[in-house]
């Protein structure tokens, strides 16, 4: 008789249900597994056999065939050890058949039968919920991240023996409620009240956060670019429940969910030696890369021109489509990557241009350095802002700037203001308005048109940068909760244009 047990695997960042079928029949003793398995799944055979033996059960010397369905889906990962073991124990009658129906099992087994944590449990649990399963057995090491899944019984499993004991007696750990994870708000130090001076940069950061724009900061070494970038999450609207789940799923798959689930938006700052695969996501079964880990948050590339040219060009797709797609032999994976892109750069190689007392770079050197950020990438950056070194008086002044919380309140109001405008559309932020909709959402008055006409001819604007200026002006007006874009909004927006395009 065939026993089937539900399990799941991860494809991209989504879970797919996999059924583990076990058949035990007479014949030469063997233990075979089929179903398009990767090597770590095939190795499960040895782990499962030893774990069952070490838990005190005997596998009969029969012909055991295990199939992981559907057969055309490539299975990878170590999710299947526990379901395979449960399925074998059920087919030899140790676990009652009625105890496995409508349940889902995931987990890796150690040789002594203990259950090891795996990555990607949250999407699996959510999938189980969608599929209408009643209970989900997960490694106890994964229990914290499951707190976001409400409406399904999550049962932590420590080892195989204990699980069998519970199933035989029918007294499952079902009463265990998953502990609510403490909300983390991030590090207090990274608050705008601790940023001294930097009026222009703070203002630009606020606009960036409110309209989900992209920003490039140019400044001398040690002027505070990194500090400002790190403060960014503190002024962005908190994650909504939906977004929290989205983010937690990604972190679950990447195995990074240790620190609890934050309501703050993620902040990723890969080093400039990062490879293409680590940024975009990679591996035979692609894991999320930095672009995806920054989803709904901030991707900060410090020393942007120092990144390899290929790495910088990779930004094109996420900045345009807000997803990144990776094609592999096994299929095409689409990872979400909707983030605020923050770049930081020195103005030249030595970092001090245009201070000619310190900078010895020639005009050619300066242009070459900034030229590493290609035109198409520059073209996708909405705000470009210069960061100036903090002066001695500013360091020593005890004056605290506005706290991030106050700024965040303003940003949240601006976000609401945008939501109102974009209801019934697929747009949620000003940065997402495309060329077709500029006229509709950002109409300009006669006076404002004149300013733009003048700027267009005098400042050599491209059509894309023209549109960008209007979008940024729209956000500035939203921060003031103004229905119409005014002249001063446009002027400020023009001031943030990137001048290397």
């Amino acid at each position: 008789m065939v026993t089937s047990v539900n399990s799941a695997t991860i494809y991209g960042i989504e879970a797919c249900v996999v059924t583990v079928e076990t058949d035990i029949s007479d014949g030469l003793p063997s233990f075979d597994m089929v179903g398009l398995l990767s090597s770590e799944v095939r190795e499960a055979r040895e782990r499962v056999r030893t774990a069952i033996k070490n838990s005190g059960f005997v596998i009969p010397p029969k012909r055991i065939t295990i199939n992981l369905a559907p057969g055309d889906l490539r299975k990878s990962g170590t999710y299947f050890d526990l379901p395979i073991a449960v399925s074998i124990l059920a087919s030899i009658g140790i676990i009652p058949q009625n105890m496995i129906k409508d349940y889902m099992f995931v987990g890796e087994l150690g040789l002594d039968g203990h259950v090891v944590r795996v990555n990607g449990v949250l999407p699996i649990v959510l999938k189980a919920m969608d599929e209408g399963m009643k209970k989900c057995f997960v490694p106890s090491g994964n229990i914290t991240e499951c707190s976001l899944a409400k409406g399904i019984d999550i049962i932590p499993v420590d080892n195989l023996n204990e699980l069998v004991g519970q199933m035989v007696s029918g007294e499952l750990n079902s009463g265990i409620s998953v502990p609510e994870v403490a909300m983390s708000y991030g590090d207090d130090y990274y608050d705008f009240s601790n940023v001294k001076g930097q009026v222009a940069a703070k203002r630009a950061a606020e606009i960036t956060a409110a309209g989900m724009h992209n920003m490039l900061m140019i400044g001398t070494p040690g002027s505070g670019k990194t500090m400002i970038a790190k403060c960014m999450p503190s002024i962005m609207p908190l994650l909504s429940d939906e977004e929290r789940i989205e983010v937690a799923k990604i972190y679950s798959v990447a195995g990074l969910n240790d620190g609890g689930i934050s309501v703050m938006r993620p902040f990723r700052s890969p080093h400039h030696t990062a490879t293409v695969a680590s940024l975009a996501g990679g591996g035979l079964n692609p894991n999320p890369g930095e672009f995806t880990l920054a989803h709904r948050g901030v991707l900060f590339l410090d020393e942007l021109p120092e990144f390899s040219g290929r790495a910088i060009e990779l930004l094109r797709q996420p900045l345009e489509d807000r997803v990144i797609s990776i094609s592999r032999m096994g299929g095409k994976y689409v990872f979400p990557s909707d983030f605020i892109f923050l770049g930081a750069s020195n103005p030249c190689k030595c970092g001090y241009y245009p201070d000619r007392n310190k900078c010895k770079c020639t005009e050619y050197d300066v242009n070459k350095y900034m030229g590493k950020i290609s035109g198409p990438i520059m073209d996708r950056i909405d705000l470009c802002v210069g960061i100036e070194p903090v002066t001695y008086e500013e360091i020593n002044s005890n004056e605290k700037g506005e706290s991030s919380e106050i700024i965040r309140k303003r940003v949240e109001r601006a976000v609401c203001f945008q939501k109102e405008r974009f209801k019934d559309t697929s747009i949620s932020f000003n940065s997402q308005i495309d060329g077709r909709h500029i006229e509709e959402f950002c109409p300009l008055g006669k006076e404002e048109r004149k300013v733009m006409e003048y700027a267009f001819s005098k400042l050599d604007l491209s059509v894309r940068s023209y549109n960008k200026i209007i979008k940024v002006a729209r956000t500035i007006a939203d921060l003031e909760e103004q229905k119409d874009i005014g002249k001063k909004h446009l002027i400020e927006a023009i001031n943030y244009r990137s001048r290397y395009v």
Partner: protein
Amino acid sequence: MTREELWIWYATLLDEPNGVTYKTFESTRQIKEVYEAGIDQLVEQYKFSKKEAEQIEKSKGSGKLEICMKRMREGEIQFVTVEDKLYPERLKQFEDKPKFLFYKGNLPKEYLPTVGMVGARACTNYGRNMAKMLGEELSSNHIQIISGLARGIDTYSMIGAISGKTPTFAVLGSGVDVCYPTENIELYEEILNNGGGIISEFIPGSSPLQWHFPIRNRIISGLSDKVAVIEAREKSGSLITVEYALEQGKDVWAVPGRVGDSLSSGCNRLLKCGAGVLTSGYDIIEEMSDVVKDIKQLGATKDEQMEMMEETNLKVYRAIESYPQSITEIMKKTQLGYEKIIEILLCLQMSGVVEEISKNYFVRCIK
């Protein structure tokens, strides 16, 4: 009484024939207190003499105020007090500054340089030509000429200034609606038509009394960045202006004349004492070259501009130097807010006089 009425009443006191001692009241509150005080209080508290106190008391119902107000309305005369924002910055620093000014037309622009031109009423042909030439040269280089509208040098300086196109300003020793000498009425009109102004601290309608002129001279020198003397005798009224100018710390320039010419003896003496030798308008322009150059640069592109010649624009432009300045530095220098600064910077960039050399770093364009 309204604030303006109080001040104008105060102005009428100055015009009393016997000359009420000129007490320095600088605020509406003080004037109100004086207005409301009785004779005894005026004597005891404000240290007026008995006679003065009686005069003040009498002035309250004299109707002079009403006549003055009427003349102001009819003559489109404006009034500014030390308390007002419009009051010329150049005068503010002086101890004996006029506490109020009547004016027709405009007051001198703060951001344009000024040169006071004074000299003899009975001038020579040489003086006349020099005054005209200097007036025109300075005026065509955006310098505002301040003078007195008297006969002789004053008149010719202003005729020159009008052909130089920059507004010019006359400070009178009579009310602003009294043209003295009367033959200068055409010049008086032209000054106003040219965007300039007629200024006086005496109430409208007041006559050109002798004692008015010396105190009027302190306003001429006060409003001027530099004072030029074209022709003056050894003992001349023009030299009063020079004295005021030196007291106020202004540069004095003098046009040299022949030794022995009595009309040049005053000038030559000034030169001996170290005054600047003025042989051409460019001597002064050279000295003011920074300011004049800046204005020219901004002014040159004016036609294509929205409103370039705004005071604050020039302030920002002057803060930007030929080595790159960051926005913060410009903000510190000009004391303007971020929003205003970026608006002006954009305006300056569009007109091609300023360039953003690196993000947020600005530098002047060299044409």
